[in-house]
């Protein structure tokens, strides 16, 4: 865990959650905590002048530089990044679509512990985030909380005793907390039980979104579950209720998987291996198809089918086959049909490399 020192290093390196380690990593890809904070003396981002936003970037740079915990990371200013580089950051879940537009003085700071980053001048001046592998809400909260405390030594946050942390949108006021888990629920989808589960998640005040956050499409049986409200409940309460519900969902999915294995083992294995075969030998493929096929392979790996690739490779494929990653790696812009050919090549090569590794360790 060392901070990248340039965009290139960041691009070449892997994200912490790719390793496929951490509790329940075969089902929960990552756990994220986000805290929304604003500086007391500057209007919120959308009402601030550009020079005020430059001031916020400078204040955050100063604050991280004064903290022994946070200094030595990488500050990337969006206006200095090319559109493709900005999109790479979005595909890595490091920055939001809003931050990625590059139109205003915005930035992202990746801390030395690269599970921690800070978006600057998003909807709120600061969006602190921690992204940990697998299902580990307590760890993710500890990281975000410590980062928040460090910045609080230098920055004066907008805060009121009654309402808590003041945010541009009243939906985030209070704790400014969004805790979320990215969870893979293929068995519940296949057995058509997912709607009942999603409905009950929403009934207890939690929110469900797709892979790429707010308003994104649900793909690859991947669901992002998060708390909805931020006022009237402590961070700990919000996190505990998400933890409780996630545990129940994990159990429900586990039971569904066991049932599938018992009643339809052959069909299931067939589905998994057909997906693997398509990925291993395709010659042109769309990003969405990769995500959906990876879902089947991930299920196979999680259920212990022999001969598939490690979980790490499935995670990598999800990100490396996204449009900006493909184009950045190729060093050139590509039209969608060209990208589909290139994507197929990347997928085949990764899987072939993984097969070699497995053979080497077995021989």
């Amino acid at each position: 865990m060392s901070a990248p020192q340039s965009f290139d290093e960041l691009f070449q390196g892997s994200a912490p959650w790719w390793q496929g380690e951490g509790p329940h990593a075969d089902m929960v890809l990552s756990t994220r905590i986000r805290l929304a904070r604003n500086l007391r003396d500057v209007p919120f981002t959308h009402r601030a002048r550009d020079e005020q936003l430059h001031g916020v970037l400078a204040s955050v740079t100063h604050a991280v530089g004064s903290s022994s915990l946070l200094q030595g990371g990488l500050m990337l200013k969006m206006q200095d990044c090319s559109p493709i580089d900005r999109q790479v950051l979005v595909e890595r879940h490091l920055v939001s679509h809003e931050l990625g537009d590059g139109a205003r003085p915005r930035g992202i700071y990746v801390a030395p512990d690269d599970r921690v980053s800070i978006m600057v001048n998003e909807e709120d001046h600061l969006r602190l985030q921690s992204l940990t592998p697998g299902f580990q809400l307590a760890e993710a909260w500890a990281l975000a909380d410590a980062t928040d405390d460090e910045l609080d030594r230098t920055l004066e946050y907008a805060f009121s005793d009654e309402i808590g942390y003041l945010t541009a949108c009243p939906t985030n006021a209070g704790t400014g907390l969004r805790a979320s888990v990215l969870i893979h629920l293929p068995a519940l989808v296949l057995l058509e039980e997912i709607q009942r589960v999603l409905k009950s998640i929403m009934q207890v005040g939690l929110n469900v979104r797709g892979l790429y956050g707010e308003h994104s499409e649900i793909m690859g049986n991947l669901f992002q579950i998060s708390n909805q409200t931020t006022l009237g409940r402590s961070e700990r309460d919000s996190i505990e209720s998400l933890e409780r519900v996630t545990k129940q969902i994990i159990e429900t999915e586990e039971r569904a998987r066991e049932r599938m294995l018992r009643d339809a083992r052959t069909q299931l294995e067939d589905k998994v291996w057909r997906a693997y075969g398509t990925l291993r030998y395709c010659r042109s493929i769309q990003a969405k198809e990769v995500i959906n096929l990876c879902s089947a392979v991930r299920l196979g790996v999680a259920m212990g089918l022999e001969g598939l690739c490690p979980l790490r490779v499935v995670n990598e494929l999800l990100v490396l086959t996204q449009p900006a990653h493909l184009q950045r790696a190729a060093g050139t812009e590509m039209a969608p049909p060209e990208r589909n050919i290139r994507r197929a090549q990347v997928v085949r090569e990764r899987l072939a490399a993984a097969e070699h590794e497995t053979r080497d360790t077995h021989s």
Partner: protein
Amino acid sequence: MLCQICGKNPASVHFTEIHDNKMSEIHVCERCAEEKGMHTPAQQHKFEIADLLAGMVDSMTHTEEERVGHVQCPRCGLLYSSFKETGRLGCADCYTAFQFQLRPLLRRIHGDTHHRGKAPVRGQESVSSTRTIQRLHDELQRAVEREEFERAAQVRDEIRKLEAERQAAVREGGRS
């Protein structure tokens, strides 16, 4: 969950609608959302807050609504009517300037209007220690409920220590 409009695609766009003071959640797919003109995050964002607000001002008379719309934040100059359009406040002081309008809105969004989480330490020591003590009391109660008596004793000692420190600080402040 399937889209409530076409009933075919999975619903991935969610929003809250208010009619006659009744709140309902609507879940639709990307395509239908686009067709209904609520596709982009910014637009949808606006839609949610605008809708919440629309439901609330329904109960006001026209003149009342006009008066409220003209309330302005003395610091950043944002009019309440602009907040109603964009769903975003202008600065920290807007929360005070629009407090009477915001309180019912916050209650609708969160079901509550009082913060119960962490607080900044910097420049707010007194607020912070009060809050920490309050939080510890909550924790104490939870520990007792769960019969985690060892933890409860730890928390109790922590509360006593903080209260003693706070009283010492008050005495100190009184002398200077």
